[in-house]
């Protein structure tokens, strides 16, 4: 595999950034500094990071309601993200969108989504534009196991397959769609099995192994860039925390959650980097310190940012 040491360390740093960002968001929520709701991806970081590591800078993604990780991995800025969650004018959406609607168009992030499955046709349209413009870009489309049961999933994937669009569909299967277990919502064992229905490659990956995710997605991205059409990749993973702010986790056991915590993608990668001699403990500790510091600075920036002005409330509905 062609993973450079720099890329490996980037992946480690990004996973840590996402983890610390989200734990901090959780704290800010509990301190009533963040309003509304939000969905954390703690435990799923390898899926976002390994997938996006396979992209080039100009490539695009669509994200989901559980999208902080996708945004950060695609180059999202911590200060603008915190500012958005705090509803500030300096946030990604000028405080209009909040957690579920963060988009970073300059970096190729076409947006998180409050509608489960809502991003799937949009990603398909982005890939259609790339094909028409012949710009050589690839789109990664993130969605959950639950979203794969929306009609728009089937419609969009079929559309991409018949048109050989440059897109990779990434199902982040964390075994639940809110309280409903995956096995009660899907008649097939893997979402990737559905790829066969649209004659495209489908592959199941250990979603907590960041390098395995990278390799699988890279292969699919290369294929898409060569004009050979879409693929479907399923990262099997698990969310450690509740579905959203208000979830008492009645539908799963403590044991199950604990078992998955043992498979922490970050701890696991840290061990691997050290075992492989790719990095020293001290080096990895230093990265963690840098990440923590950047996060604290970003929170300060967000706290000190101005609120949106009520006079501007009508701005931006139409172009």
């Amino acid at each position, binding site marked *: 595999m062609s993973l450079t040491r720099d890329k490996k360390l980037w992946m480690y740093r990004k996973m840590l950034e996402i983890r610390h960002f989200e734990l901090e968001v959780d704290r800010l929520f509990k301190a009533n500094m963040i*309003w*509304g*709701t939000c969905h954390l991806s703690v435990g799923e970081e390898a899926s976002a990071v390994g997938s996006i590591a396979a992209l080039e800078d100009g490539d695009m993604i669509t994200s989901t309601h559980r999208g902080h990780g996708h945004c950060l991995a695609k180059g999202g800025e911590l200060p603008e993200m915190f500012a*958005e969650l705090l*509803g*500030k004018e300096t946030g990604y*959406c000028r*405080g*209009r*969108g*909040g957690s*579920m*609607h963060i988009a970073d168009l300059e970096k190729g992030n076409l947006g998180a*989504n*409050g*509608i*489960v*499955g*809502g991003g799937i046709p949009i990603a398909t349209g982005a890939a259609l534009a790339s094909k028409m413009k012949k710009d050589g870009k690839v789109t990664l489309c993130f969605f959950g196991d*639950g*979203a794969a*049961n*929306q*009609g728009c999933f089937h419609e969009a994937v079929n559309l991409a397959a018949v048109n050989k669009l440059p897109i990779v569909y990434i199902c982040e299967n964390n075994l639940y*769609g*809110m*309280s*409903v277990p995956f096995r*009660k*919502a*899907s008649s097939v064992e893997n979402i990737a099995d559905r790829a066969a229905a649209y004659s495209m490659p489908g592959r199941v990956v250990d979603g907590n192994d960041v390098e395995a995710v990278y390799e699988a997605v890279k292969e699919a991205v290369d294929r898409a860039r060569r004009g050979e059409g879409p693929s479907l990749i399923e990262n099997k993973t698990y969310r450690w925390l509740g579905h959203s702010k208000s979830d008492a986790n*009645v*539908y799963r056991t403590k044991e199950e959650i604990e078992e998955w915590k043992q498979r922490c993608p970050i701890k696991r990668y840290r061990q691997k980097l050290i075992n492989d001699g790719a990095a020293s403990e001290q080096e990895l500790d230093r990265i963690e310190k840098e990440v923590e510091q950047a996060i604290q600075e970003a929170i300060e920036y967000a706290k000190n940012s101005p*609120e*949106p002005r*009520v006079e501007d*409330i*009508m701005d931006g*509905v139409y172009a």
Partner: protein
Amino acid sequence: MPEKLYIDALREGLREEMLRDENVFIIGEDVGLYGGAFGVTKGLFQEFGEDRVKDTPISEAAIAGAAVGAALCGMRPVAEIMFFDFFTIAMDQLVNQGAKNRYMFGGKAKVPMVIRGPMGCGTGAAAQHSQSFPAVFAHFPGLKVVMPSTPYDVKGLIKASIRDDNPVVFAEHKLLYRVKGEVPEEEYIVPLGKADIKRKGKDITIVAGSIMVIRALEAAKQLEQEGIDVEVVDPRTLKPLDMGTIVDSVKKTGRVIIVEDDPMSFGWGAEVAAGIASSSAFDYLDAPIKRLAGLDIPIPYNPNLEKHAVPQVEDIVKAIKDILE
């Protein structure tokens, strides 16, 4: 009379109808063990089992369409859509199929179903989890549209909606779930198509629906201190719309303000205003008909912007003072 929460009264209505008629069943996302995203169906899964309180995959089109199909075949489904915003995904099955089946089939079919869910802003859930748009459905012949504002009404109206032989869109404002009010112990029904005078007054009529009834009553209380006597009329169902009660009220007070939670443009308030203007109440009007409604924007996340996106108590108070000046 015992006081109950809106959400509990709604659940009681569902439960009573499920006990009364075994064809009544609930279908939706996370309605089972989880009890619904807002807790409306809590406990029903344990009482009635998974066949009658059915969790589905995340598939709103299939939920709505399955409700239509089951209703065509004699069942009485109550479909829950987790947030009102997601009705758009269920839209084709509801408006092109369910709403039209009876007429298209020469009056031979019936589609006795309810499709319900929480609308409205005020929780910071932003643009895709906050919109109120019940009026959209009132535009489709074949659908009935209900939006109860009190615990009493929600219970009586859910029962009437379940017993109705037509598809009924049942819009609950999520801020109402925690509102308390009197609910009798004995069984009762609130018929569709009957407005209710929530407060009697002689100086001005407020026509308000859903959450805006609560705000209108609060505004009326404040205005009372200043000697202004406000009447509050709640249509309760948008379709059928009880214009008679509204017209009578306006004839009495001579002034009217319509307060909606939906965006202003093409809202149900325009329908009510047109109804008043073209009725016998026209000659009694001492001031132009006034409307207050949501701004024509997607609901913003920032709490202060969000608050300004829809009418609040102080907006109603100010508007009424302006009219009376």
